Structures are given as structure tokens and as C-alpha cells.
């Protein structure tokens, strides 16, 4: 009885844990958890997916906004997509306070936030601020006002300091900004935009990587049975021994394999914990670091090193051997007793 009850409790707890899928590598429960009551599953999975949906819709919204904006002013830089018009307005108001001097200072090198505002009211604000901020810039501001008027008509552009907001297209991201943009910034912009608008691509090319959740049962009081290790390791195309070694090294325990090829781990572990470790394992030993595809092979290279070869992109990298590391001796008396 006790065991059963415990098991149930564990399962309940574990269901929650399974549901959480915020990492790119997802050990997902979908479909495969038939053992856990099927009735509740849909909810769980739905929950687990919810965090992902908003970005999608946001991305879609961004697209829509983009197109509308683009229609409105053709000069709008491609990267300033992700904002609602309402947002833009708000930002303008805020930025415009700092706004005008930005253009002035753009020449000086250090430019705070700047915004080509569309509203006349905004411009007034800017002027005031400029005056307040410094008399030196007055000459600039005079020119700038004129410039800004043009700018504002052209497009919604905002310049912040060197690193502007890439989403709104400010700073160096301004459409007709002539400063050279460092490669790292370009790269980071590429990935943010990619993840915003095409979350699928930014993940792994495929959809999320799904493996069945580890099934854990308590055996006795201080042992945990990892039932579907064979299945999981088969899906990852890794040997059970390798996964086992990793689990033991990470969890700082040891264990054995029982008659049904289940893994018996010493110590109490919940499904969530095992899941985390498996997740780490996948990140370290399964996914290709280059293309993030889980379709890889692990084999021994020339000099006792393990190599992961990606079947998708063909890249090859070495992985560290599994090391147990230091383990403290616990309970001398117990050891003496056996």
C-alpha cells in the first residue's frame, strides 16, 4: 500500500515536472507517457506548450505590424518590426525627451537615445530638452531640428547609444545609419530576429526533440528504478552504459541493472531530477553544437577520445569523458557494517 501511495504521489509530482519545457532541448512527455493517466495529459502538454505560443503570436503580430508599417513608410528598416504601433508611440514619447541631442551627439560619437518623431508635439519636447541639456549643442540642435523633420517623415527611426534597440531599429540599427556595425552585433541581431519571427528555425531546424520522460519508481526505501532507460538510450542512439555512467557520475551514486534491463539507482530521486540529468546529458552528449540536431553518433576516435559526429551537418567534435570526480565518504559505520 505504502509503495503504491508513494508511487502515485511521485507520479503526480512528476507530471508537473515533465510539463516544463522551457529549454530548447525538450524532454517531452507528449504521446509517450501512456503510463501516466492519459486523461490528464493533454492539459499538461497544453500547459507546457503555452509558454511557446505567445512568442509565435507575437512574431505573427510583429509581421503584421511590419507590413503595415512598411506600407505606411517604405523606408522602415526591416529590423524594427516587433512593435505594435501603440508601443511605438509610447516609446517615441519617452525617447523624444532625450531625443534631439542624439543626432547632435551622433557626430560626436556618443549618442543617447534619439527618435525621429512624427508628431509635432514631440519635436517641441525635444527642443526644450535639448536646450535644457546644454547650450553647446544649440547649433547642432538647430540643424537637427530641420534634419529631424525630414527624418521623421522618412521613417520611424530611433537612435540610442552605440547599441540601439535592434527591434525598434534605433542606434546603429537605424535604416540609413552609416556607421559600421560590428560583426558580433549583426550576429546577435540575426539570432534575435530569427528567434522572434521563426522560432522553429532558431531551435533545431526540426521541431523540438522529443524523448519519452524517464519513468522512475521507488524500489524499497532508498533505491530508485529508472525503468525506461533502454528506450531512452535507444532513441538517443547512445549505449545504456554511457548514459548510466553519466547518471551515476552526476548523481554521485552508483547502482545496477536488474533483470528487465531497468536501472536501479541507489538513493532517492524523483523523476524531475532524473529528467534534469538526462537533459544535461542530451545537451552535452547528444545534440550537435553546430546545428543542434540530435541526430548524432558517439564513437571512440583515434586517441581514446570520444567524438560526436553529426549526421545532419557532418560536424565532428570531441566530448569530455565522463568523470566521477571527488566523492566524499559518507557514513563510516554503514560501510563497516556492509
Amino acid at each position, binding site marked *: 500500500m505504502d509503495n503504491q501511495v508513494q508511487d502515485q504521489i511521485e507520479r503526480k509530482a512528476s507530471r508537473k515536472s515533465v510539463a516544463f519545457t522551457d529549454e530548447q532541448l525538450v524532454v517531452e512527455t507528449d504521446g509517450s507517457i501512456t503510463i501516466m493517466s492519459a486523461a490528464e495529459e493533454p492539459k499538461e502538454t497544453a500547459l507546457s506548450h503555452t509558454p511557446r505560443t505567445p512568442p509565435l503570436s507575437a512574431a505573427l503580430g510583429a509581421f503584421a505590424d511590419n507590413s503595415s508599417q512598411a506600407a505606411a513608410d517604405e523606408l522602415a528598416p526591416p529590423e524594427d518590426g516587433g512593435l505594435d504601433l501603440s508601443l511605438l508611440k509610447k516609446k517615441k514619447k519617452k525617447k523624444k525627451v532625450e531625443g534631439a541631442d542624439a543626432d547632435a551627439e551622433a557626430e560626436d560619437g556618443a549618442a543617447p537615445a534619439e527618435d525621429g518623431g512624427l508628431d509635432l508635439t514631440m519635436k517641441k519636447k525635444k527642443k526644450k530638452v535639448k536646450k535644457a541639456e546644454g547650450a553647446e549643442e544649440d547649433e547642432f540642435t538647430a540643424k537637427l531640428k530641420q534634419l529631424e523633420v525630414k527624418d521623421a517623415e522618412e521613417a520611424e527611426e530611433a537612435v540610442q547609444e552605440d547599441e540601439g534597440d535592434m527591434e525598434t531599429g534605433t542606434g546603429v540599427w537605424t535604416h540609413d545609419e552609416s556607421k559600421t556595425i560590428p560583426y558580433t552585433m549583426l550576429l546577435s541581431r540575426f539570432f534575435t530576429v530569427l528567434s522572434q519571427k521563426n522560432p522553429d528555425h532558431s531551435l533545431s531546424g526540426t521541431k523540438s526533440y522529443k524523448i519519452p520522460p524517464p519513468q522512475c519508481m521507488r524500489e524499497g526505501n532508498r533505491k530508485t528504478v529508472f525503468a525506461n532507460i533502454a528506450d531512452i538510450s535507444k532513441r538517443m542512439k547512445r549505449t545504456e552504459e554511457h548514459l548510466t555512467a553519466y547518471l551515476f557520475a552526476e548523481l554521485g551514486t552508483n547502482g545496477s541493472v536488474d533483470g528487465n534491463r531497468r536501472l536501479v539507482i541507489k*538513493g*532517492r530521486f524523483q523523476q524531475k531530477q532524473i529528467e*534534469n540529468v538526462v537533459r544535461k546529458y542530451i545537451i552535452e552528449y547528444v545534440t550537435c553544437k553546430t546545428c543542434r540536431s540530435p541526430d548524432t553518433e558517439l564513437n571512440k576516435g583515434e586517441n581514446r577520445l570520444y567524438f560526436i559526429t553529426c549526421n545532419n551537418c557532418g560536424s565532428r567534435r570531441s566530448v569530455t569523458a565522463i568523470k566521477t*570526480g571527488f566523492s566524499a565518504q559518507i557514513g563510516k559505520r554503514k560501510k563497516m557494517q556492509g
Partner: protein
Amino acid sequence: MSIENLKSFDPFAEADDDTGDIKKVENHIHIRIQQRNGRKSLTTVTGLPAKFDPGKILTFFRKEFACNGNKVNDEKAGEVIQLQGDQRKKVLDFLVDKKSGLGLNPDNITVHGA
């Protein structure tokens, strides 16, 4: 001539330096956890940089985390700090924190265990 030049470069020596895990391991800090009886556990911190005094760190940990702990000299791992209970998160925070901690690079720290 060119062959002579080639000889002077020993590819294996280089490789050892680069991939030799031993070197990395020394700089690398591992925070591990071990289960004890019941719901008790033990946190071990290995590979702390030599420039820090493990004794002082230990006393700080004990006071700050309100746990007991000791340091052990291990043949392989060197000075190891053992703390009672699951202190992994706190230890990590301390090691990484720049203001009130050691300000180490989080890339050099691995937290093991579930």
C-alpha cells in the same frame, strides 16, 4: 630545411596542452551533491583556485549558510570543502557574485547533480 622546421613543432605536445583535461580540471570548480540517509545530503566543492584560502571560505560558508562543514584534503581533488545539506545554489551564487563573493567566471563552475 623545411623538414627541419617541421620537426621543431611537436604536434603532440601542443595537443596535450590544448586538450589535456587535467589542466582544465584544475581551474574548473565542481559543485557536487551526494545523498545521505533520509533527506540529508552533502555538498562538495572541489577545484577552488589556490589563491583563496579554503579555510576562510569554509568559515564564511558555515556562518552564512548556517550549516556545518569541513575541508578535506583529497589526493586527486586537492582541498575539498564539504558542507552539510544542499548548498549548491548558494555556493554558486557566492562564487560568482562580484560584489560580495569571489567573482569567478561562471563558465568555470559546474554544478552537478539533479
